[in-house]
């Protein structure tokens, strides 16, 4: 999208349109166990993003011909609510959400011990209720929390985070204006313990050095987001323990 003349993404003090420094994340809030019917769930607010994830499974996979006799299939569905964006989004899967569902499914399959659940499906429903750029990385961050909440054995959580380029500068975690009028976007998801990359996409224009800078910013914020995830899980299970005690 062309940038209107009157929009400046970086001000004279070197601050971004929402007042952040180049390497600063937006505020992130996470909560686990927010849906009673789902086997696991999580809610993440990340800047202006509001994302709700529900996990169902492991359960017998339908249609049956999609079952894998040796392992579970992790099936993520990324879905945007019609009212989640300025211009109403036509409900149902479009080509973008089909692609995102695919790469998110693949990334989550990496952490789940799928071999424990032959023929099962693990369905991960990612609902974007309010979108503000970076929905796929916020979504996958929430999805891994919801999987953990469902008690599904995993080798690690997954942390998503994006960086990009605006007005020639590499910056962390683009907001909507930056995504619309910026020059590049690099969404990444990693396993926080090993820093292995399980999701990586990029569009726009970056040199190798800029990619390096962007990856460095992302990797530096992974541990912080990981801590938020662990805290959210702890809060949930402390509450759970208290509920059990009260019940006795």
């Amino acid at each position, binding site marked *: 999208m062309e940038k209107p003349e009157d929009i400046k993404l970086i001000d004279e003090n070197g601050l971004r349109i929402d007042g952040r420094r180049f390497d600063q994340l937006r505020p992130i809030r996470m909560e686990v166990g927010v849906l009673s019917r789902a086997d696991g769930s999580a809610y993440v607010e990340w800047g202006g993003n509001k994302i709700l994830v529900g996990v169902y499974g492991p359960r017998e996979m339908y249609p049956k011909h999609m079952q894998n006799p040796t392992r579970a299939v992790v099936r993520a569905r990324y879905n945007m609510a019609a009212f989640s964006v300025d211009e109403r989004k036509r409900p149902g899967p479009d080509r973008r959400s*089909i692609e995102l569902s695919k790469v998110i499914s693949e990334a989550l399959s990496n952490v789940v011990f799928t071999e424990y659940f032959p023929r099962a499906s693990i369905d991960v429903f990612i609902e974007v209720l309010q979108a503000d750029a970076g929905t796929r990385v916020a979504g996958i961050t929430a999805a891994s929390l919801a999987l953990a909440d469902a008690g599904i054995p995993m080798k690690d959580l997954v942390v998503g985070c994006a960086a990009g380029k605006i007005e020639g500068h590499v910056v962390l975690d683009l907001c909507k204006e930056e995504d619309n009028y910026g020059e590049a976007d690099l969404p990444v998801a990693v396993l926080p313990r090993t820093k292995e990359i*399980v999701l990586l*996409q990029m569009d726009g224009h970056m040199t190798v050095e800029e990619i390096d800078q962007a990856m460095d910013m992302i990797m530096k914020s992974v541990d912080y987001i990981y801590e938020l995830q662990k805290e959210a899980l702890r809060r949930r299970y402390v509450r759970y323990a208290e509920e059990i005690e009260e019940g006795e």
Partner: protein
Amino acid sequence: MKMGSKLAEDVVSEIRKDYIMNLLSSGRRADGRDFEEYRKIDVVVNFAKRAEGSALVRLGETQVLVGVKMDIGEPFADTPNQGVMTTNVELVPIASPTFEPGPPNEEAIEIARVVDRGIRESKAIDLEKLCIEEGEKVWIVFIDIHVLNYDGNLIDASALGAMIALKNTIVPGSKFGYEDFPLPVNHYPVAVTVAKVGKTLLVDPCLEEENLAEARLTVTTDENGDIRAMQKGLSGSLTYDEVKKVINMSQRIGKEIREKYILSGD
């Protein structure tokens, strides 16, 4: 294992897998190539004469036919002075026993979107030159990729075919009362895909290698060696060092392919 995917039914037998993995550990590929060696590319330009531009690309045994058709329509509201481009991939059942007829599945959509991203983000087509009347009438570029034989690495074959077809496209102005003119193409992105099999990075994976791969990374570079698009696929992981290696390979191999197959007609 991919879900909902008919491609996933292509399996490599255990004995063949052992053979290939053993070869890889001794530094060789089953088809005799080096790890960073591309398969033989063969291009037939303007194969489909009813298209405004077309290219038949053979990448080893993989074959794709890309046709470009043009029409006049309305621009998008947020880009009133630009033409429109769309990319579509058809995995037609002629190309593999595992392809089924029907609307594009997620594999086809992913390939189309990765190819589209490379062309769009490198600003390969000068879309502003495709504006006829601002906000009212613009040229629409339809890039249709028909996969004819599937032996791996459809992304690279499709991206290359698309660029060659675009470069040879004549906008059919005379059909609409204007003049014909060559499609304005300014940049030449090239996609290079690498598969990670075991710990080995294999450039331009054939089908068998694709089926053994844990992860896949496509990097699209422009003529300056800058990166315009990336896409990781499959459920395996990559280290950042591996990503950097793939970027390097893509820059080097992309340059060769661009010079030899896209710019050579100049």
